[in-house]
């Protein structure tokens, strides 16, 4: 399975250099951009979250202080009612005064107060402000505020919000209050007895304070609960009691002041807790995690748009860069491909220095290949022509005609021995000429061939010249291209000694020099001028006036085709003094292996030939 996907992925790999560069650049730049974008967003999100939490804490501190001030003022009212009104008065004879002073206290604080009432320990109403008729049977002693005050006499007690069930003011209204109750000493007729002072705070004051901070539209809210988690104020109070929604107030009530992380009803949220002093109430700020991102939708869109625009820009830049980098390479590649396809355009040279240099190199290489190819074709053609020429020389009809005519003439003249000699020489000549189709033969065979040829020519020219062979026997075991001496000898006869009367001399010498085998043909003929000497080896179009038609150029070419350009013929001539034509070839021992290697031509056997020359030199040294 994995292999299959890997192969599919491999298929997706861009093939062109431009696509590769662009894909790589795009992937890298977009990855960097994404990472930077995400990191920036996270940083921004965290910053925004910290800011929200900080501002929530500040707001809660402020709200908490306001609430504490409010509660302190209620306690002060309670203290004032107790210490300034109740403690200093006797209910039996100062009821009017008490009522008046309570009225003053109430009037001064009525914005936040619902009522002030004094009950004795039996739950009978002693005084109340504002004056209203008490309900028929409110059963005060069983009401929570009364019970708590009596249970813990030393403290003031703040109740949770409840409906005031004490007075009937005839308005058909029910008031939602928070009761502050405390046990008091009531003096009545000089006797002291316990009672309860009740200050009912208007719940709307607290709900107004809380409503003022509950204005956020992003899901963030604040609520107030007592130390047991009983909700005092919650923006969704009825929904909670109806079970439509819930609140984690029981847990929040256990928290100390601070910021907490919690998960409630599947939602992650931050909870900021502030304790209201004396009451033990908790002011709780709830910040759902979703509210941190509320209002950030547009920021998200903005960041996405910026990232997309950056991506667009990067794609453009990447394309420009990749095109700039790859275009010279592609152009070079295209020109090379065109070249390979058989067309011959100029190799592209342009772009940066490296590509330019590469272009130049490729162009030079192709030019060299071109020249070499031409040269090889030329050499092959020359070799074929030379071989053809050599073949032609082997069966020169004119030479054969002359030889046969000489033999006929000898037989008719009764010179049977001479005729036999001639026939045997002719047979040797042809045997070596053929040499089983080989190009390279031993020096011995070449000399034999030359001797046979000269013997026949001497008969033809009636011994008008002499021939001397001065070649050491040790040289006969070296390799030589076949039929190279015969054309030289033919030239020596035709242009040198052929026209001389009995004094013509031709000398064939052989020796080794600097590892090379030198075979020279010297005559004392008419010689040549310097210009003629130069043309002998260069002008292949010279018309042969006489002979087999195989010129020295041909011989020279054949030697160089097999042994290399440094070998060949060397002509020395002085007019009226004679000519010496030297064959210079490497001294390579004649073996079947060497012969086969040499017959491939020097281009294909250069290294082996160099080895053979080296071996030849060693052998020569050993002999010496």
């Amino acid at each position, binding site marked *: 399975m994995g292999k299959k996907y890997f192969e599919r992925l491999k298929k997706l790999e861009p093939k*062109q250099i431009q696509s590769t560069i*662009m894909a790589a650049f795009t992937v890298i730049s977009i990855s960097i951009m994404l990472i930077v974008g995400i990191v920036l967003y996270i940083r921004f999100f965290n910053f925004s979250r910290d800011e929200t939490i900080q501002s929530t804490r500040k707001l809660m501190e402020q709200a908490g202080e306001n609430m504490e001030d409010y509660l302190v003022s209620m306690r002060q009212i309670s203290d004032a009612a107790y210490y300034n009104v109740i403690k200093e008065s006797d209910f039996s004879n100062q009821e009017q005064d008490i009522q008046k002073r309570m009225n003053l206290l109430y009037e001064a604080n009525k914005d936040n107060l619902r009522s002030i009432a004094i009950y004795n320990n039996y739950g009978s109403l002693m005084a109340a402000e504002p004056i209203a008729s008490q309900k028929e049977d409110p059963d005060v002693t069983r009401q929570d505020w009364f019970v708590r005050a009596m249970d813990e006499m030393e403290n003031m007690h703040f109740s949770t919000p409840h*409906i005031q069930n004490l007075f009937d003011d005839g308005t*058909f209204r029910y008031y939602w209050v928070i009761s502050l109750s405390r046990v008091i000493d009531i003096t009545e007729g000089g006797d002291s007895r316990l009672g309860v002072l009740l200050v009912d705070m208007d719940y709307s004051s607290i709900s107004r304070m809380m409503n003022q901070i509950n204005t956020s539209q992003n899901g963030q809210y604040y609520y107030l609960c007592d130390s047991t988690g009983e909700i005092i104020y919650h923006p969704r109070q*009825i929904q909670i009691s*109806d079970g439509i929604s819930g609140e984690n107030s029981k847990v929040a009530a256990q928290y100390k002041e601070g910021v907490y992380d919690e998960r409630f009803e599947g939602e992650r949220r931050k909870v900021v807790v502030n304790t209201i002093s004396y009451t033990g109430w908790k002011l709780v700020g709830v910040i759902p995690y979703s509210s941190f991102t509320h209002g950030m*939708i547009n920021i998200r869109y903005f960041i996405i*748009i910026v990232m*997309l625009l950056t991506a667009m820009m990067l794609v453009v830049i990447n394309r420009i860069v990749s095109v700039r980098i790859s275009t010279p390479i592609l152009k070079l590649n295209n020109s090379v491909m065109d070249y390979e396809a058989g067309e011959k355009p100029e190799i592209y040279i342009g772009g940066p220095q490296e590509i330019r240099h590469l272009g130049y190199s490729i162009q030079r290489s192709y030019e060299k290949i071109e020249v070499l190819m031409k040269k090889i074709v030329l050499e092959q053609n020359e070799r074929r022509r030379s071989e053809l020429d050599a073949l032609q020389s082997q069966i020169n009809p004119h030479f054969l005609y002359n030889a046969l005519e000489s033999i006929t003439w000898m037989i008719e003249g009764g010179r049977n021995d001479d005729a036999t000699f001639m026939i045997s020489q002719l047979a040797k000549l042809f045997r070596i000429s053929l040499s089983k189709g080989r190009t390279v033969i031993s020096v011995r065979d070449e000399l034999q061939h030359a001797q046979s040829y000269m013997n026949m020519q001497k008969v033809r020219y009636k011994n008008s010249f002499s021939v001397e062979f001065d070649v050491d026997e040790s040289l006969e075991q070296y390799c030589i291209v076949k039929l190279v001496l015969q054309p030289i000898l033919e030239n020596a006869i035709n242009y040198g000694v052929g026209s001389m009367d009995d004094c013509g001399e031709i000398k064939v010498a052989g020796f080794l020099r600097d590892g090379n085998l030198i075979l020279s043909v010297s005559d004392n003929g008419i010689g040549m001028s310097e210009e003629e000497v130069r043309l002998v080896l260069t002008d292949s179009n010279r018309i042969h006036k006489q002979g087999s038609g195989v010129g020295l150029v041909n011989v020279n070419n054949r030697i160089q085709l097999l042994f290399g350009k440094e070998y060949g013929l060397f002509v020395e001539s002085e007019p009226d003094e004679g000519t010496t034509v030297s064959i210079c070839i490497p001294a390579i021992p004649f073996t079947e292996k060497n012969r086969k290697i040499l017959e491939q031509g020097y281009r294909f056997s250069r290294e082996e030939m160099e080895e053979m020359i080296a071996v030849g030199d060693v052998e020569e040294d050993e002999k010496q």
Partner: protein
Amino acid sequence: MKNSKKTFILIETVLAVMVLLFALLMLLEKNGQALEKVSVIVQDSDDGQWAAFKYGLRMAAADQNLEVAVISTGGILTAAEEEGLIESEINNGADAVIVQPSVDSDAEAMLVRIQNNIPVMLVGCTASCDAEKSTIPTTEPDHYAMGRTLAEELLDDYSGKLEGKSIGIVSETESSASAILRESGFRDRLEGTGAQISWKVADTFEEGSAVLENQPKTDFVIALDDSSLVAAGACSAANNLHGAVLYGIGNSTEAIYYLDTGIAECLVVPDDFNVGYQSLTEVAKSLRHLFHKMEGKTVSYTVIRRDELFTKENQEILFTMSQ
């Protein structure tokens, strides 16, 4: 090379389209801050019986982030007046309406017409007297069950011995679906108990409670709605109910007051907070979810006696009525 160029153009086009899309979303987000507006049309909307209902609407509006407007109506509306008000609200940009239907017979047809244009939610009772034939979603308490419960409470108080006892029934109207169901629920439960329905009055009591005072003396007066209960309570407080014991269905602080002061013996209180809350929540869903089919809701009711008026649960009911 050509492929590379094509890919480049394709990538740039896709990115450009995405940029435009997000820019559009951003603009829509900026412009989309106008809240949906829901208009609420109920009979005599300033009456105290709607306090809990309005509080429920307010809470739901805060939860659902909607703008809600309760249209001030002085008294009982006819179907034509109601249609005029709804049309006017639609022209003023209302996206949906919550309506307490008029008792007129053509109210259902009128509201069905309106429903073709904007979502309509009924509250209180169905527009058609035959509740089962009504096609418009309605959020209401189970009227039949409330009537039946009232009878149960009466029977409980007298240990089921109502033989020879006379009963007077008061309601605001006798043609509304709610009144019919409540009465039939009450009558059905009393059937066979020997109690006698002596009289039945249907009146809006805008002219006072004289119509009640003129009724013959009965042992019990049963008020089937808040207005009737308040009128009967006032009449009883003035000792003009000939000593009849008052039972009823009510949802105002006046009704609670009469129970608190012992004028009413027992009160069945429909959960009007939830009528407001649930109806608006359902409307909000229908406005925000294209394929949401608005459904009617049945809310609960509570039986309150004087001695348990100030329990924690009942204080919360009072709290919603006092807002």
